[in-house]
């Protein structure tokens, strides 16, 4: 941030040329796509917009998206806190293996992630017959969609927390323990407050990805309208129909989610920078 105060030695012509290129690129690739979502959503009027959102299948998709996020995000938060505590505060054999495993979802296509769960729990999957005999439905149902979403989103919280917890070391926790706090008290009153902004940051990124995940969920959902369609899947379905504004109307909800995420993110960055 303080880079702007440094004397730049670039000639003004170069400076403004570069700013111009970046400006044009950003307008075409970032600003216009954003504005376009909302303009297209309302291209057939407010009444039409309202009608698309009031459809039964759209409402069901909203519910499904919220439900999947409401399960997967808290689980990832618990995992994030536990994982970061173990990995950042301790040294043990296999620590790097854990770190590699945590990074794995970044290197695996979401479609492959979905496939992994289909192979394990699908009707023709390894545990498929057993699950069917016990009337447990995972694939083409909420559990599978949640698993796929968790797979894609679990690194976000833990990756955010590990560097913060490492930088802070263990001195404060040790002090709390010496002063007589038990483990839980130390965690709640010392560790958690000191990572809270990073934690919230990880949560909103994780949430944005969980609500917006397409590939992994698409593979395991079975695309049952009114049942297993999430908002992104609903967008795809409407895209393949004839109404040009309808997919954008549903997409505008996800666009709002993105904007909200960016605003909270900027706020958190500002907050944590202020405390440093």
């Amino acid at each position: 941030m303080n880079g702007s105060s440094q004397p730049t030695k670039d000639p003004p012509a170069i400076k403004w040329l570069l700013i111009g290129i970046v400006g044009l690129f950003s307008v075409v690739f970032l600003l216009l796509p954003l504005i376009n979502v909302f303009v297209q959503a309302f291209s057939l009027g407010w009444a039409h917009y309202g009608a698309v959102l009031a459809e039964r299948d759209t409402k069901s998709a909203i519910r499904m998206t919220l439900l999947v996020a409401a399960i997967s995000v808290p689980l990832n938060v618990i995992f994030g806190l536990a994982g970061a505590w173990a990995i950042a505060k301790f040294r043990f054999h296999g620590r790097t293996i854990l770190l590699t495993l945590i990074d794995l979802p970044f290197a695996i296509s979401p479609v492959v992630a979905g496939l992994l769960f289909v192979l394990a729990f699908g009707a023709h999957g390894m545990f498929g017959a057993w699950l069917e005999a016990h009337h447990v439905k995972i694939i083409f149902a909420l559990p599978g969609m949640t698993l796929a979403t968790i797979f894609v989103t679990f690194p976000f919280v833990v990756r955010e927390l590990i560097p913060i917890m490492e930088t802070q070391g263990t001195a404060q926790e040790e002090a709390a323990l010496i002063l007589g706090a038990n483990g839980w008290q130390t965690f709640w009153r010392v560790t958690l407050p000191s990572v809270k902004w990073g934690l919230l940051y990880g949560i909103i990124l994780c949430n944005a990805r969980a609500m917006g995940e397409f590939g992994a969920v698409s593979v395991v959902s079975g695309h049952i309208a009114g049942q297993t369609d999430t908002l992104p899947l609903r967008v795809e379905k409407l895209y393949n129909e004839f109404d040009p504004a309808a997919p954008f109307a549903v997409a505008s909800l996800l666009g709002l989610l993105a904007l909200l995420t960016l605003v909270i993110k900027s706020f958190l960055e500002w907050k944590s920078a202020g405390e440093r």
Partner: protein
Amino acid sequence: MPSGYSPPTTTDSIGRRFNPLPGLRITLGFTVFYLSVLVLIPIAVLVVRAAAVPPGKLLSAAFDQQARAAYAFSLWSSLAAAATNMVFGSLMAWVLVRYTFPGRRLLEGLIDFPFALPTAVAGLTLANLFSDHGWVGRYLAHVGIHGAYTPLGVIIALTFVGLPFSVRTLQPVLEEFDPLVEEAAASLGAGRMRTFLSVIAPTLMPTALTGFGLAFARALGEYGSIVFISGNLPSTQIAPMIIVIRLDEYDYAGAMAVAITLMAISFAVLYILNRLQGWSAKFQRI
């Protein structure tokens, strides 16, 4: 692999033998359990199930004509997108860190927009924007460029989803970059261009390559946005699409074969980039 952080060198208070902090057993246990259920067991299932398929069948499914074309297209479109991101991402990071100008704060906020926007929405709006009737596409169409339902469209979408990786990996490094080094170069008689090419660029190269790797890995696996902008043509089929097609045909062996190949390609490229990064880091010390 996305650049791992390096463990702290001051292990004084976190020495393994005298760590007084509680909870290692339970947190580590939960971490291992969670990763096992989510990652290890599913991957083990893939390995076991793939091993049950005759190798010949697996190989022919992995490398049939359609799959080969898809790997090739996935690879080159992802490389093109990651390269575009490296150029424009570096430029953006440079402009954001070094200059003040109207709209800088807005740009700073917008950079992460592709992270926050669901990829399905990205594909939807980009396909519309770059179609022959869209706000951008109508001008491109005049010069014979079609940015939707073409290979170019796929590259556009992949560039969009990968852009923040390039900018956000470079930005902190640029911020830390000591202006004294530049001043030293200048006082030794180097021109601005010479300073950039022989002092600034080599220093930033390892980081730029990290960003390239992240953007590339993201692009190679991307599916959501491509569904919308590719127009489902044979010339725009990416590897993840083949997996979905095989699954729809209940051809599990085929889906597994393509999935394993895609993962192998992804890991191989990330490995090469990692080596390249290590190699270019040697030039970092001035």
